[in-house]
């Protein structure tokens, strides 16, 4: 296609919603997405799963179909750079071609990613994230042949427990980080959550009741947790009230909620602020998506975690604002929806302190094999921020561009140095945003020296 007017990065709820609005307003809209099919993480492979067990909710198709009709969706596409102008550079993996687009507006709709959960042994083969396990089930219909130990907390963990059992897999044990009943902090938000989002609350209660009725062993609120094994996960050791029990487990899925994916907003040097309820940074963004860079907008959970339904609303709002900015009539945005159940969910599953289970020899940065102890030693030697720990230890220098360790490193520094995360800051993000073959990125012509 010729150069688009609008490029949306991410084909999840907010990106698809934004694209359908800008597309319908007559703006040539291109959606770039790294997955094989649109839907994002939450509605992954929605079109293929329509006839399968557990298809996404109807909302997914209500958003996806107009996006298909009004915009071009390019999947298997890695965004590798983003710059003022604005411009976006992407690798189309199917063809191995790199293209730079210079649209009038770019909407960053990169959603959420899982919060790291540091447990000794988390890098052993056999350990994965709950999100990765769900991806395997949703996208490839892969169901583990061995019982899975689910470790952590959050709505996604409960949902995956159901999906696993319904698809013919087995949950071996659940190790839940909290207590069985909501504490006072969560109960305070319960009435509003039930009032604002009764559907979601009923679904959550149903998932919890289902797990309780399933007979799966549940261990709650452990004092200590470690995954052990010789070259592969073999058992989880749970310490509680001074007693240690080992539970055999070859496949272990970890989860501690989700946080905004800030790789692109960090690359653009946008102003970020720490959101205590998420224990994560989020860019400081107006509700209409405007950022301090002209032509660059942010929509959905990339602004802060609010869930799929509100991400759709955010995508529509930002899409309408972009259309108006570019001089096109657009539907006036609907009144902002209440952030119904989010406060309850955040209080029910408070993010796990980064040092709750981690020991000095627990891996912090998996790419470069940097331990929590190595980061602590760098702090003792004077490192006061994540980029100093990085240069001292190589933490965050590997191919994942600190997606797995960045949040944990900021929190570790804040904890050890007793300073607020806003002062600690985050690791710098640099292109390429995804590792890219040198042959794919190399310019066709050689450059002579000046």
């Amino acid at each position, binding site marked *: 296609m010729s150069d688009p007017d609008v490029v949306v990065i991410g084909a999840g709820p907010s990106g698809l919603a934004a694209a359908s609005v800008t597309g319908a307003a007559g703006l040539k809209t291109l959606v770039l997405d790294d997955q094989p099919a649109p839907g994002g993480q939450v509605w992954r492979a929605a079109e293929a799963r329509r006839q399968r067990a557990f298809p996404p909710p109807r909302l997914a198709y209500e958003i996806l179909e107009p996006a298909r009709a009004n915009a071009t969706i390019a999947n298997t596409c890695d965004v590798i750079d983003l710059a003022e102008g604005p411009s976006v*550079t992407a690798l189309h993996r199917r063809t191995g071609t790199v293209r730079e687009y210079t649209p009038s507006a770019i909407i960053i709709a990169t959603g959420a990613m899982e919060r790291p959960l540091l447990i000794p042994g988390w890098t052993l083969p056999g350990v994965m994230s709950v999100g990765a396990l769900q991806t395997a089930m949703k996208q490839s219909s892969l169901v583990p042949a061995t019982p899975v130990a689910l470790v952590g907390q959050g709505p996604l963990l409960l949902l995956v427990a159901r999906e696993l059992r319904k698809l013919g897999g087995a949950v071996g044990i659940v190790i839940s980080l909290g207590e069985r009943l909501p504490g006072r902090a969560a109960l305070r938000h319960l009435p509003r959550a039930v009032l604002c989002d009764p559907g979601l609350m009923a679904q959550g209660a149903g998932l919890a009741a289902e797990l309780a009725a399933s007979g799966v062993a549940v261990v709650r609120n452990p004092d200590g947790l470690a995954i052990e094994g010789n070259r592969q996960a073999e058992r989880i050791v749970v310490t509680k009230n001074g007693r240690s029990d080992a539970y055999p487990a070859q496949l272990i899925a970890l989860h501690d909620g989700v946080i905004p994916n800030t790789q692109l907003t960090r*690359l653009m040097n946008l102003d970020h602020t720490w959101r205590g309820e998420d224990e994560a940074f989020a860019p400081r963004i107006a509700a209409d998506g405007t950022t301090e860079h002209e032509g660059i907008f942010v929509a959905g959970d990339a602004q802060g975690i609010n869930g799929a339904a509100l991400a759709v609303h955010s995508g529509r709002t930002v899409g309408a604002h972009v259309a108006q900015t570019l001089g096109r009539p657009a539907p006036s945005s609907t009144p902002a929806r209440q952030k119904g159940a989010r406060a309850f969910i955040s209080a029910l599953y408070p993010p796990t302190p980064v040092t709750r289970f981690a020991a000095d020899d627990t891996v912090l940065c998996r790419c470069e094999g940097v331990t929590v102890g190595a980061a602590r030693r760098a702090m003792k030697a*004077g490192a006061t*921020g994540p980029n100093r720990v990085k240069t001292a230890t190589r933490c965050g220098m590997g*191919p994942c561009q600190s997606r797995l360790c960045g949040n944990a490193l900021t929190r570790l520094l804040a904890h050890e140095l007793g300073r607020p995360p806003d002062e600690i800051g985050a690791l710098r993000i640099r292109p390429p945003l995804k590792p890219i073959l040198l042959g794919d990125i190399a310019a066709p012509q050689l450059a002579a020296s000046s």
Partner: protein
Amino acid sequence: MARYDTAVIGGGMVGLWSALLLARAGQSVVVVEAQSVGRHASSASAGGVRSLNRHPAEIALARAALPLWKSAASDLGNDVGFQETGQIRVAEDEAALVRLEQRVEMVKALGFTHEHLVGTNTLFAKEPHLARHCLGALVVEDDGFADPLKTIHALHHAARTAGVTIMENTKVTGLVGGAPLIIHAGDEIAADTVINAAGAWGAQVAALAGENVNLTPTALQMLVTAPMAPFVSAVMGTEGRKLSLKQSSAGHVIIGGGFTGTIDGEGLSARPQHAAIAQNAANAANLFPHLKEHRIVRSWCGIEGMTPDGLPIVSPSRTMPGLIHAFGFCGHGFALAPVTAQLVQSLAAGNTPHWPLEPFNVARFEAAAEGRIDA
């Protein structure tokens, strides 16, 4: 008011190494750094320890720096990752080969013997994975490279151990001549000698002393690949194209050569540009085609000061007695840092340095401005 024998403005390679030598000689020394130690050109450096293809004025200094790098780890008390791998500059076409031949003659005429030409047999025996269109190369056997991050950390640690006071996040806003000199940096700092080792910001410090230096801040860009099996031993460059390429002991390939990124609004940070990454990658793949099948995982930039003649300023100030400049290394100061520290030490003591410093004198810019030197 805090009082020191010497205040060093800038906590990069040159500033820290100078501070270390002065402190070891018994002085009280403070380093005043606007951001954090080694934040820019020092840690973003390619880490080349190169006497190959130096400007004639820098050859003697680069040769003198080599033994200092060999002993740097024991001298600083921590590993700096130095490896004596040799440096190679290949000719990819006839015209480039002719230029390398002329270069060897020129260097010989100056009395140096460290650079020599090799033909294809020797070249491909040294570097078997090198593309076969290469026609020959200029080689220095005892050059090599060090790890910039390890070096900065070793220097930082050694300087602190030697008693140097290091003030980070402290920007110098004023400089007043006299005895002692007074630095305005939030609080006032008094020092008998002030070293301007402010890198890309060196001209701003010189301006505080009323001295005009033509310095362009430039964001030099580097790339690194995922680790791969060893395939290259020397640090590789190519005549007529911007490239430096080396493989770390862990297997990462580090690619640079002077491509530039963009400096952010306030001039305190920089980021690589896609187009420059693409060109740098193309130059690398032209020498080692198999690199096309490996992934670039990261790129970064550091801000460096470039002068019109490509040479640094290592010179007493002309306007403010007690102020000594050592900045503007134009992207090739890493290797020179230990020897620059020695020069700074002799200038600070009022001694005549071992090597002629006329080409690095700050006066050359003022002379150029007055039209006395044909630029």
